[in-house]
């Protein structure tokens, strides 16, 4: 008989699933996410996994985590620290000990707190038996043992049984938060369609976990998080990389262009390649090249031949693509270069987030080679910014660098599904009229040249990386011509600012403190500014998506505040860029280089200090 337990309604809650990288924590977290999304919660998620595929089992280096923040209020970040931690082994507990709220609930798989596993995690004694976690609500669940017990008659081998224990943990958490299990059952039936015994086993284990939580006295109450007050419409859950790929697909369809992706696998950008590779049905051509350079070069070749061309990468790949990008700038061909930033320099922190490629995106090429630079700022708006990147590149015939980051790319949130017809129209700038063709003849207003695609009669011409003569595009070493061409290439980018919307401000339009961010830091910056506004502080948030060119009203915004703080996950690249563009304005900085996003609490502390001075 089901016990009656007090159900407590929560505004929001942060849950973290952590275990060995082979424990299936990403899948467990994703299932909890999908179920919560279907219940109408607003949410944000973030997976945190090691760079190694299978780091030594049981060690802190091998811990894989998945954090989810759900709420019935507006959720903008995956949460600073967890209210509930599921730790599948001692290493998972150790890795997350500073990321769990004081007094929070920790569910541990007690079967793994053996001498051997404790040693692997670097514990001499069990942290559960000293005072390390005093004041926390520790639930010691014998997950391994009960999973084995649950499946002893399933006919599955020991290894397969062992692999099901994440479902036991998921069952416990489903009970804690009053979630139905149908969504996960449906998922399991589909995923293991050819192995009904595996489906049955996983469902049974999940139910046993659920019932275990219901039975034990350790859990004082179960919680519920009601539906968020989201706007009417049809929603789905999207990850940043997926949304970005879909934005490109939508742009290709609206532009009536074939989409071509030339790419080389790299963390954390590969999922864009994977997503686009699935959609050959929509006419997408994906080319997994032999290296990063061939990725961008094949894309430029396809662009020359008329495709909407994309290349995707992360930090080290951006370095390799520099020369190719310079050629696309010189040849004035459309190209979207997506850089999903990660920690650097060099190989750096492949699975962690950072915003330290900004200067490279803006200036990391030989010669004066200006590129349009855009940045997406939430997982869902990766769709919109990918679309805009494609629109700008096709209409202006100049490459666009789109900056995302590991946190956005792997993060997920509900997305109110857009229709491609809601997106602005795209008019590729191609010469389709009969008559003479001058490759470098420009539109007077935008300075963009027109393309002529191979296969078009009478418009044969040669492009190349050597300096071009204005209008004809012939090779030219003339001193004056080179200067004119350098000016035109720069001016052409600046003129895009005539066409983009004005920069928006969240919060106070004038006041004591302007918080400036760009790209993926929007979630924590917005949440923090909202909190301060509730306390009647005169603060505003200015989150940039257009980096080059900057929106035209930027200078006006800066004048309206007593203090300005530029917050970024690097040591001040955007702050310096602003200093260069707006000399005389004083920009203070708040920077973090830990591979993790800002927490709202650290931001709030810093902003309050600034406001009190």
């Amino acid at each position, binding site marked *: 008989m089901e016990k009656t337990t007090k159900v407590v309604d929560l505004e929001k809650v942060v849950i973290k699933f952590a275990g060995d990288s082979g424990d299936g924590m990403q899948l467990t977290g994703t299932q909890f996410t999908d179920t919560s999304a279907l219940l109408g919660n607003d949410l944000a998620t973030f997976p945190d996994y090691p760079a190694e595929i299978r780091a030594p089992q049981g060690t802190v280096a091998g811990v894989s985590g998945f954090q989810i923040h759900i709420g019935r209020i507006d959720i903008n970040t995956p949460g600073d620290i967890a209210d509930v931690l599921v730790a599948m082994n001692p290493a998972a507990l150790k890795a997350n000990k500073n990321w769990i709220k004081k007094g929070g609930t920790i569910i541990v798989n007690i079967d793994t707190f053996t001498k051997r596993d404790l040693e692997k995690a670097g514990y001499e004694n069990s942290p559960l038996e000293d005072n390390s976690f005093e004041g926390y609500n520790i639930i010691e669940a014998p997950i391994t043992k009960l999973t084995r017990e649950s499946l002893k008659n399933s006919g599955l081998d020991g290894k397969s049984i062992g692999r099901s224990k994440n479902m036991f943990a998921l069952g416990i958490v489903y009970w804690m938060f009053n979630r139905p299990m149908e969504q996960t059952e449906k998922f399991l039936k589909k995923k293991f369609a050819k192995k009904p015994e595996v489906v049955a086993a996983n469902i049974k284990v999940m139910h046993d976990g659920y019932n275990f939580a219901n039975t034990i006295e350790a859990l004082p109450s179960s919680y519920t998080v009601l539906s968020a007050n989201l706007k009417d419409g049809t*929603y789905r859950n999207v990850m940043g990389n997926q949304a970005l790929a879909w934005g490109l697909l939508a742009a290709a369809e609206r532009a009536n262009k074939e989409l071509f992706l030339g790419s080389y696998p790299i963390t954390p950008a590969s999922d864009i390649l994977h997503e686009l590779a699935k959609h*050959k049905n929509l006419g997408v051509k994906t*080319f997994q090249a032999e290296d990063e350079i*061939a990725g961008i070069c*094949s894309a430029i*070749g396809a662009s020359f031949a008329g495709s909407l061309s994309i290349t995707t990468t992360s930090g080290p790949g951006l370095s390799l693509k520099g020369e190719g990008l310079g050629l696309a700038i010189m040849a004035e061909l459309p190209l979207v270069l997506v850089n999903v930033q990660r920690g650097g320099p060099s190989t750096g922190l492949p699975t962690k987030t950072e915003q330290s490629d900004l200067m490279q995106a803006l200036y990391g090429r030989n010669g004066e080679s200006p590129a349009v630079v855009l940045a997406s700022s939430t997982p869902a708006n990766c769709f919109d910014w990918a679309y805009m990147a494609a629109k700008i590149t096709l209409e202006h015939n100049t490459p666009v660098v789109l900056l995302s980051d590991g946190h956005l790319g792997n993060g997920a949130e509900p997305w109110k*599904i857009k229709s491609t017809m809601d997106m602005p129209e795209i008019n590729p700038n191609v010469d389709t009229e009969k008559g003479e063709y001058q490759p470098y003849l420009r539109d007077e207003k935008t300075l963009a040249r027109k393309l002529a695609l191979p296969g078009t009669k009478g418009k044969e011409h040669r492009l190349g990386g050597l300096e071009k003569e204005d209008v004809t595009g012939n090779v030219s070493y003339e001193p004056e011509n080179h200067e004119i061409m350098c000016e035109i290439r720069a001016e052409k980018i600046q003129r895009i600012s005539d066409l983009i919307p004005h920069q928006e401000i969240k919060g106070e339009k004038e006041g004591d403190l302007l918080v400036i961010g760009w790209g993926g830091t929007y979630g924590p910056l917005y949440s923090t500014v909202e909190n301060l506004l509730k306390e009647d502080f005169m603060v505003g948030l200015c989150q940039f998506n257009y980096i080059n060119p900057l929106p035209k009203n930027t200078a006006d915004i800066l004048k309206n505040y007593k203090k300005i703080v530029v917050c970024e996950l690097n040591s001040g690249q955007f702050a310096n860029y602003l200093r260069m563009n707006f000399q005389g304005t004083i920009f203070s900085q708040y920077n973090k280089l830990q591979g993790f996003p800002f927490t709202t609490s650290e931001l709030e502390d810093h902003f309050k200090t600034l406001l009190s001075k």
Partner: protein
Amino acid sequence: MEHLTNKDFTSDQEVRWCPGCGDYTILRAMQKALPMLEKKKEDFVFISGIGCSSRFPYYMNTYGFHTIHGRAPAFATGVKLANPKLSVWQITGDGDALAIGGNHFIHALRRNININILLFNNEIYGLTKGQFSPTSKKGIKTKSNPHGTTDEPFSISDLAIGSQGSFFARVVDTNPKLMQKIFVEAEEHEGTSLIEILQNCVIFNDKTFTDITNKDVKLDAQLFLEDGKAMIFGAEKNKGIILNGFKLEVVTVGENGITEEDILVHDAKEKDPTLQAMLARMRPPEFPAALGIIRAVERPTFDEGLLSQLEYEKENAKFKTVDELLNSGDTWTIEG
């Protein structure tokens, strides 16, 4: 179809190679070969990297793209995949293709993308003024290795065959007739067609191929391979190639009981590349250099593979539009 002549393929740009450079002959041979192909002028695309040879596209009145050093195969791949109807020609040199661009070169051959690669091999860097290249003969003294190179040169044919190349031909820059014939056959071959052109650099590596091309020796130093024909060569047309054990050997018909029957007959279509590789490796003075189409085998092309997948997926797709994709999977609706 409009009848085209070599003039249609000549651009208005002044040709700026050194006087006496082998590149001029190649350019003229190409301008004469293209009208022989039943194709429209606007469907030809010339892609090059960096180097003397890579200026070639500027002199062709076709679509062209002078790209960056070593990467031309990647650009050419992108062009071909984006529009498979185009006839795509990559122009490259030994430095561009085999040093900085070695990776792209082998991968193009491995994939068998349907493009033609003209590799101008002069065994030297010309545009950077005379450094040794990956095909320079070992020991050659250059500005960048005044005491003689200690590098072993690449064997282009072995590299091509090792990369699963489906078409390999060789020609000398003094033989425009053979060039034209090979260019036409290269275009007709489905897959990556690699043509090595032994090209003389008059400034930095003059006479490096005279052991093959000199008038006094060429009849004995060149073997023209023709599919189905015996490998006979020499001033007297009485020399031939036989396989003796594991090795090739030059013999004279009529001596030591050798008859024409004993001479190897060329088979460019044989998929096993062993003999073709051995022939391609031959060099004077012991052997004549093999010229002509050494290997031309059928193998599925990369572009056809991609296109057929695309067609299959389009026909069997769950979604035909992006909107259908966006609305697929788990969604939920909120109504006020």
